[in-house]
């Protein structure tokens, strides 16, 4: 039957009208009603969002802040010449065309300086008005005559500087006058500073003769002394020798020798005379840079600009624009400084990223969990909305609006606090993270509520024990497992740390949380079966109830587990750093203090040291380095000790906690190879046999009597023999091959001192009293030497903050979980009271019912923390955090690795348990106050 036309139109209109349209803001003041109905929850949500937004927004700013501080300190500590760029140009005699002098004039030099200022690119910015230029001789010219001080019979050398006219006239004349401008004949006038005059014994009127290439000496007449008017004049920084003479040491044998190097300031007339000096004339430009505004992010750009100036496009542009040919830019000092900073930043970067990702993940998990709990609590309400005709997007919009009214201002407040309290220039990342926090908080509740109502009819029983996991859940779990495997593989293979490797601890914790959700009922079921024969009903009931808890009750405990794991990982990083430093210091010193003499310890040193306060042990040993057994290439150190004192020392301070087998060294008859305690590598070389080794006291045979992994006072491979046995092995005295020091090669060279609180000053005094040339090293001082750069200190503080934040979030997740189940618990207690259980029994039941999941979560947190440390240890290198670049460069070979830290492994879970018990006790006491009648009058809770 064909549909007549008007009916078709009506059908279309009906269809259009029937399409569900969403309502705009209607007459129901939803937000106001909700806020009035649950102000406490809104306040709590607001506080949580504000704190989280503050933490996450402050994170990038804190990182930037300490990086900037580190850069500023590095720049401030650097010497002035590293904070500037120097341009030099060798002046070769140019063709003397009319109007052009052989040496560049002041105007040309100024033009070149101007060209440099044009060419240089930001972030390399020259300080305005601080640059200085001039001409000087290329190499210091030797003086002639014997009038000047000659400490080692070496002639002093002079550098003659010709600054621009205005710089010279800007100096304050102390005595005499400034040098004349006009070119004279062979005599050149110059001035010098008072200090130079004092040291070199010159004054106004004296002359200095300088050697020239053409043989005829150049006479420089001193016309006066000058002082700069202001502090730190640019010329003094550009040519430091002008300020005062410096002693230049000449390498050689015997006593050190050197000569004086001093500077003279001359007028414009000396320019051409400089050409006659050895090394010719060099035009120089000194541009101090304005580096206060340099941020760590601009460092790569600065490096690029410097590289371009040194040999790239900018160098070509400078040469093209400069009237002086051959201008070469040298920024190596600054470049090296920036490169060192960039390298440290790069090394510490991945570790900081791990901490940041950890905290951000834990915060996100807790926010999502709070939203999920809230959604679970409002299940009936959203079901009602759905039944009254609310569409899923409409309900989501209502819930999102209600949360956004609280969350968005709170997030804004948190971000504002971060912007105000943490000084930094980086704001984009902070804003982005704050917005992400607000979005997560706004969307968690609506999405969770809407997902639960996708199907219109009620779900089956939600018991944990009976629920068969859906396929979607299996897919999610497998995805997480794959991600974890990928992250572990990436971190172990040493690939560059992307976000995946940075998220490795969080991924491991997530996998453990999913595992906990799966196996959570099993121990409870076992416990239920074990307790069902008990005479009282309370324990069994509690365990059974714990097993029947809805799945929503386990979700917050998964969040607790993630938080505990990340906190313990952070703690293990800090512990690893401390442990690495301690091991490095121990390896460098060997005991609590070490006194080393180049040839042999002076007489009576041991006795004097033993008398110093705080010294408990002193063992004198002889260490010879770099020995090799015949036929094997591995160098080792031979240590001749007194076994008993050495063993005592090893027990105190040894790397492997003592257990040094002194007895193995004792049995020696006098013939044959000496028994020695050797390192594993050397034992491998010896292979059970004996070998001869050439020591300072002659050759001696050794065999391996015991193997230890490490011994005090030595690093690497070693062989420890008894000094007495060594002496006995040469009944006819030692045959020393090299007798220059007057020793016989058997005396101890190192005194190892053990004591709890050693005073370095007193030890040094005692050592000085015994002899000279002794080097005293203290373990505490070595450890203090590893005191970090601001970069490392900042990173370590960040880790501390991350640990604290994660522990706090874990406690918060637990609190939320307990608060969520509080109404059900109160109703349970009331019903139990009506059934006739005593108050004590009822409270015990409520207590025991809530505890098993929390205990499981805490235990899971400890195990997962340990597992994360063990799994990630090969891949995470903490050396960048433990030792600064200088210490690394000086050869601290100890590697800092993740070390399980008992503090952060055990204290947070214990804290969680204590908190849970406290809150549970408080809740049961409060419900006892109200009485069962009041509880039961209110509606169905669970």
């Amino acid at each position, binding site marked *: 039957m064909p549909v007549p036309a008007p009916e078709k139109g009506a059908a279309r209109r009906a269809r259009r009208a*029937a*399409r*569900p*349209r*969403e*309502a705009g803001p*209607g*007459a*129901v*003041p939803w937000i106001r*009603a*909700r806020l*009035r*109905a*649950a102000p406490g929850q809104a306040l709590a949500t607001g506080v949580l969002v504000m704190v989280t937004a503050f933490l996450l927004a402050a994170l990038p700013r804190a990182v930037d802040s300490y990086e900037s501080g580190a850069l500023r300190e590095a720049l401030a500590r650097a010497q002035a010449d590293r904070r500037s760029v120097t341009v030099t140009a060798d002046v070769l005699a140019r063709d003397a065309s009319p109007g052009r002098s052989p040496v560049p004039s002041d105007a040309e030099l100024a033009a070149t300086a101007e060209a440099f200022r044009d060419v240089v690119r930001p972030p390399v910015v020259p300080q305005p008005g601080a640059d200085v230029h001039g001409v000087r001789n290329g190499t210091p010219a030797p003086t002639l005559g014997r009038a000047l001080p000659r400490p080692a019979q070496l002639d002093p050398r002079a550098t003659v500087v010709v600054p621009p006219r205005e710089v010279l006239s800007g100096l304050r004349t102390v005595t005499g006058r400034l040098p004349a401008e006009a070119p004279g004949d062979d005599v050149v006038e110059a001035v010098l500073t008072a200090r130079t005059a004092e040291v070199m014994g010159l004054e106004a009127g004296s002359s200095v003769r300088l050697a020239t290439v053409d043989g005829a000496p150049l006479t420089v007449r001193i016309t006066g002394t000058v002082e700069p008017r202001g502090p730190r004049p640019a010329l003094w920084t550009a040519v430091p020798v002008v300020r005062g003479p410096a002693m230049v040491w000449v390498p050689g044998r015997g006593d050190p020798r050197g000569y004086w190097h001093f500077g003279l300031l001359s007028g414009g007339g000396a320019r051409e005379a400089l050409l006659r000096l050895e090394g010719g004339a060099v035009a120089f430009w000194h541009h101090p840079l304005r580096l206060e505004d340099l941020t760590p992010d601009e460092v790569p750009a600065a490096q690029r600009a410097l590289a371009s100036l040194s040999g790239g496009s900018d160098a070509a542009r400078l040469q093209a624009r400069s009237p002086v040919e051959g201008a070469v830019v040298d920024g190596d000092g600054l470049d090296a400084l920036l490169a060192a900073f960039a390298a440290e930043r790069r090394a510490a970067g991945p570790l900081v990223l791990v901490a940041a990702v950890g905290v951000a993940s834990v915060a996100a998990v807790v926010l999502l969990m709070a939203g999920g709990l809230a959604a679970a609590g409002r299940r*009936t*309400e959203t*079901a*009602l*909305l*759905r*039944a*009254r*005709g*609310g*569409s899923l997007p*409409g309900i989501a919009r209502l819930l999102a609006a209600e949360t956004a009214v609280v969350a968005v201002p709170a997030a804004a407040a948190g971000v504002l606090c971060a912007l105000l309290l943490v000084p930094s220039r980086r704001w984009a990342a902070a804003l982005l993270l704050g917005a992400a926090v607000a979005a997560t908080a706004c969307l968690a509740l609506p999405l969770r509520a809407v997902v639960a109502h996708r199907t*219109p*009819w009620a779900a*089956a*029983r939600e018991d944990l024990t*009976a629920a068969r996991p859906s396929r979607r859940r299996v897919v999610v779990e497998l995805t997480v497992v794959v991600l974890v495997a990928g992250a572990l593989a990436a971190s172990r293979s040493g690939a560059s740390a992307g976000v995946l490797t940075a998220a490795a601890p969080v991924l491991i914790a997530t996998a453990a949380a999913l595992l906990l959700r799966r196996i959570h009922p099993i121990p409870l079921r076992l416990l239920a079966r074990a307790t069902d024969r008990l005479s009282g009903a309370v324990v069994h009931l509690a365990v059974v109830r714990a097993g029947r808890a809805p799945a929503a009750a386990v979700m917050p405990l998964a969040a607790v587990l993630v938080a505990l794991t990340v906190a313990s990982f952070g703690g293990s990083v800090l512990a690893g750093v401390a442990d690495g430093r301690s091991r490095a210091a121990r390896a460098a010193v060997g005991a609590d203090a070490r006194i080393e003499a180049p040839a042999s310890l002076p007489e009576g040193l041991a006795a004097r040291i033993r008398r110093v306060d705080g010294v408990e042990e002193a063992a004198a040993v002889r260490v010879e380095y770099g020995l090799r057994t015949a036929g094997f290439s591995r160098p080792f150190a031979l240590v001749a000790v007194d076994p008993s004192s050495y063993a005592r020392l090893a027990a105190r301070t040894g790397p492997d906690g003592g257990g040094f087998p002194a007895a193995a060294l004792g049995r020696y008859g006098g013939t044959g190879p000496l028994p020695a305690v050797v390192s594993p590598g050397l034992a491998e070389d010896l292979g059970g046999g004996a070998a001869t080794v050439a020591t300072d006291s002659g050759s001696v045979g050794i065999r391996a009597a015991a193997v230890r992994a490490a011994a005090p006072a030595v690093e690497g491979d070693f062989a420890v023999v008894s000094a007495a046995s060594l002496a006995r092995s040469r009944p006819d005295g030692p045959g020393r091959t090299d007798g220059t020091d007057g020793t016989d090669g058997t005396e101890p060279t190192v005194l190892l001192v053990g004591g709890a609180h050693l005073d370095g000053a007193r030890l040094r005094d005692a050592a000085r009293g015994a002899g000279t040339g002794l080097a005293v090293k203290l373990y505490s001082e070595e450890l203090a030497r590893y005191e970090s750069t601001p970069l490392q200190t900042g990173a370590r503080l960040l880790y501390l903050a991350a640990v604290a934040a994660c522990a706090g979030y874990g406690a918060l997740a637990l609190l939320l979980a307990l608060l969520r189940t509080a109404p059900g618990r109160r109703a349970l207690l009331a019903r139990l009271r009506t059934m006739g259980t005593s108050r004590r029994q009822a409270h015990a039941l409520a207590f025991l019912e809530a505890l098993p999941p929390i205990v499981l979560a805490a235990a899971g947190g400890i195990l997962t923390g340990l597992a994360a440390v063990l799994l990630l240890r090969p891949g995470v290198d903490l050396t960048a955090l433990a030792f600064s670049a200088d210490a690394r460069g000086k050869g601290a070979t100890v590697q800092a690795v993740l070390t399980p830290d008992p503090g952060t492994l055990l204290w947070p879970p214990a804290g969680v348990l204590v908190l849970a018990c406290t809150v549970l006790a408080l809740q049961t006491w409060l419900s006892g106050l109200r009485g069962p009648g009041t509880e039961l009058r209110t*509606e*169905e809770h669970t």
Partner: protein
Amino acid sequence: MTERTVPATLADLEQRAEAARERPGYGQDALVVCDRLVRIFTAEGVEVQALQGLDLLIGHGELTALVGASGSGKSTLLNILAGLDVPTAGAARVGGHDLLAMDAASRLRYRREVVGFVRQETSRNLLPYLTAEQNVLLPMQLAGRRTRRRERTARARELLDLLGVGHCRDRLPRHMSGGEQQRTAIAVALANSPSLLLADEPTGELDSSGAEQVLASLRTANEELGTTVVVVTHDAAVASSVRRAIAVRNGRAASEVVLRSEVDEHGAERVVTQEYATVDRAGRLQLPRGFTETLGIAERVRLALRPDHIAVHPDRVADRPDRVTDRPGGSGDD
């Protein structure tokens, strides 16, 4: 009762088909049509047949009660009619909407515009943080029809006044008595002018006066607004005050009690209750337990067609078919 088959021509068959098409279908002008409705719940290997082929016809503007013991399937039927559950088999049509073939959008439209639902627990009918008037406004707002706010507010007040809870307009639910809460819930259910109002034991939590008020409101809704009302109850007072009470037994509609007013010999109007047994489309009939137990009816009955009724005789031991001489369906007892 055999018919003699006559070979049919094609024209005969066409005529018969046309006649069948023009004959009114089952439940043509009824609002609620349930045709052999089946709902089976499966949980952990246990199967529960809540509805076993239920036939039901409810016309426009009727005030009907569904009564039955617990477990008889009446709440399941209500959930299906409200669009909150989907039947396993059979057909259910409410106001032209086929309840088995609805997608999410049409189900949403159905919940908004065709049906209103009132539950037993007062807390699940109203949002505790909105006043009565705001609760009534909420479904209107969620439906998103283009009505102005003033009109909506006027309609909300009108509904509340009609049901006698106008004085509770600005009160929160916890400040209202049980009866007032349920009447507000009825107003909420009527907010979008549904064709069908479903109430699941609305008087279950109330005392007798409250129950009386709720019943009066339902009757008002039915009479003033013309809404078809179906009340599920096991309260005898409710069942006796509606015009038609359908008893559901073992997942099927078993019997009905209908109130009819008639004029007796003195000219006075009298309300008479008449109890009927429901006959489904296949002609099946459920005999009341009282009847079957009294007569000892077990497996078989004998039927006899009389001019104006059907006689149902129990299967006597003497009439067992092992006596060969008797004809089956034989002599009646009277």
